[in-house]
């Protein structure tokens, strides 16, 4: 683990209003995450994993406390600044892949670069590099509906990685995959983490994922119950 801190969270609380009253999803989280970490937020359903990832990803904002991500306070960002942060410095991988259905594999991976207005030649090169890392060069013209679950998730990883983000947030990335595909995906992410020094943060309760983590932050009822470095 390297020292430079990318994420700093202090006394973070998140409340939601529900039909039954106020529900506290995060209840005073304190943690820091440094560059190059391969970290997982683990815990049972409803423990606040996804909420924490959403706040780190500037898709949601804290109710109380501070979340500083890449030097920017999430509470202080306006929607446009939050969009810029996600566009240029964060990558997302979702449980159900969230690929754009009418686009080809190439176009899905190209999408983040289009938003960054990278010129066509460089864009093409970056997309091809990314697809090469994930072993998808023979699928560039396929549409998501023509791919298997494992292939879809690899496209999603390629899309998350193509702009070389500093942090990749992966919410239950293996939940829809079989064991073989899960290991394949995880090995790929470990390789990318090592080669590109990208910080990976997972929200998961899948033991297969947990087996690859180098740091495991366990959440229970919105609080950090355990924060441990593993031997991976």
């Amino acid at each position, binding site marked *: 683990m390297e020292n430079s801190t990318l994420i700093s969270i202090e006394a973070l609380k998140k409340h939601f209003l529900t039909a039954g009253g106020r529900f506290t999803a995060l209840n005073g989280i304190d943690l820091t995450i440094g560059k190059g970490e391969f970290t997982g937020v683990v815990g049972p359903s409803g423990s606040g994993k996804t909420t924490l990832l959403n706040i780190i990803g500037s898709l949601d904002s804290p109710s109380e406390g501070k979340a500083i991500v890449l030097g920017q306070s999430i509470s202080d960002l306006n929607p446009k600044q939050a969009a810029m942060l996600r*566009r240029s410095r964060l990558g997302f991988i*979702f449980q*159900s892949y*969230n690929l754009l*259905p*009418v*686009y080809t594999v190439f*176009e899905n991976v190209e999408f*983040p670069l289009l*938003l960054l207005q990278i010129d066509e030649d460089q864009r093409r090169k970056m997309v091809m590099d990314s697809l090469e890392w994930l072993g998808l060069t023979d699928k560039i013209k396929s549409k998501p509906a023509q791919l298997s679950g494992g292939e879809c998730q690899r496209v999603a990883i390629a899309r998350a990685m193509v702009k070389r983000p500093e942090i990749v947030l992966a919410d239950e990335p293996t939940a829809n995959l079989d064991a073989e595909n899960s290991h394949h995906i995880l090995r790929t992410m470990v390789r990318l983490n090592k080669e590109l020094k990208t910080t990976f943060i997972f929200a998961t309760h899948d033991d297969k994922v947990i087996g690859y983590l180098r740091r495991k932050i366990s959440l229970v009822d919105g609080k950090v119950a355990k924060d441990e470095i593993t031997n991976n």
Partner: protein
Amino acid sequence: MKLLFRLAAKNLIGAGRRTWLNVIVLSISFIVIIWHKGILDGWNIQARIDMINWETGGGQYWQNSYDPYDPFSLTEAHSKIPVSLDSVASDGHMAAILITQGTIYPEGRIQSILIKGINSNQKILKLPASRFDGNNEELPALIGRQMANDNRLKEGDRVTIRWRDIHGTFDATDMKIAGIFDTNVPTVDLGQVWVPLDRLQKMIGAPGEATILVKENIDSGYAAADGWKFKTKEDLLKSITDLIKIKSVGGIVLYIILLSLAMLAIFDTQVLSIFRRQKEIGTYIALGMTRGQVVALFTIEGSLNSVLAGLLAALYGIPFLIFQAKTGISISGAGKEYGLALADRIFPAYSLGLVLTTIILIMITTTIVSYLPSRRIAKMKPTEALRGKLQ
């Protein structure tokens, strides 16, 4: 913006059948609106030309007492052609018409008519007055095709005509149908009998007098004349212009219905899209698009329906509209029943203005209809959208 257009086009084409259904409905609206407006414009142009050629010329001087809607004043509504206009009339730049009431007795029936006297050498109106020539003994008369059909008269027939002179004395003679003319202007046809001006002047005892003077159709202004009032071409065409305006308003109802159908389809598609594509919306936001950009993307997607519809409409609409403009639409004298200047066949007239106005109207309406449901996106929580949860 270029990126949004590119993405929107891709999404729209990718939506397949849903898009094409909207596009087809919208393209039909394009064509029907242009076609219907073209018919009205074509009718307007045709009717104005016919009325100018057959009746109004470039404007008319009316004897001060003349009121076309008051037949009882006709006995007084004539006087000498003013000196200031006499030479103009003699040079053929003006046609004098004398009008009086009369009656004909075709096949023993009584038919009230207007007897109109006009010079046989006039060239201002299309009326074939030269056919009066060469018949000095009998009273030659011209009648329109509809008048001939209504009274079962044909060329060469003789029919008794009765009138009153300026002293109120009845007189009668036999007139011979010297010709039957075809016109689209019912006001020179129905209930009208045209005779030579000098003969009518003699018949009613009003030598050198006229009721109206029809100016030739050139923009030359007009001279004032004592005892006569000038009616411009636009004054005389007002009835047809007003009628077309009323028809156009009626047409707007049709456009609104057509556009509403098309817009309903687009609105429905947009609302469905926003519900069905919540995950996609969440993904766009997660990948770094602002909510404003996503709203713009969906609005452009909706608006592009009108662009595709325009292209499709051009594909099948241009040949159809050209075909209609060449062959016209048969309405077989329906308008004559109502006294309208309506040809048997109307040729639609499409102007660039009409096409552009229609395109702009449809595009603006489509954009508004696409934008309204898209505003919901701005209120969506991206975290909920990503999960595809209905909001």
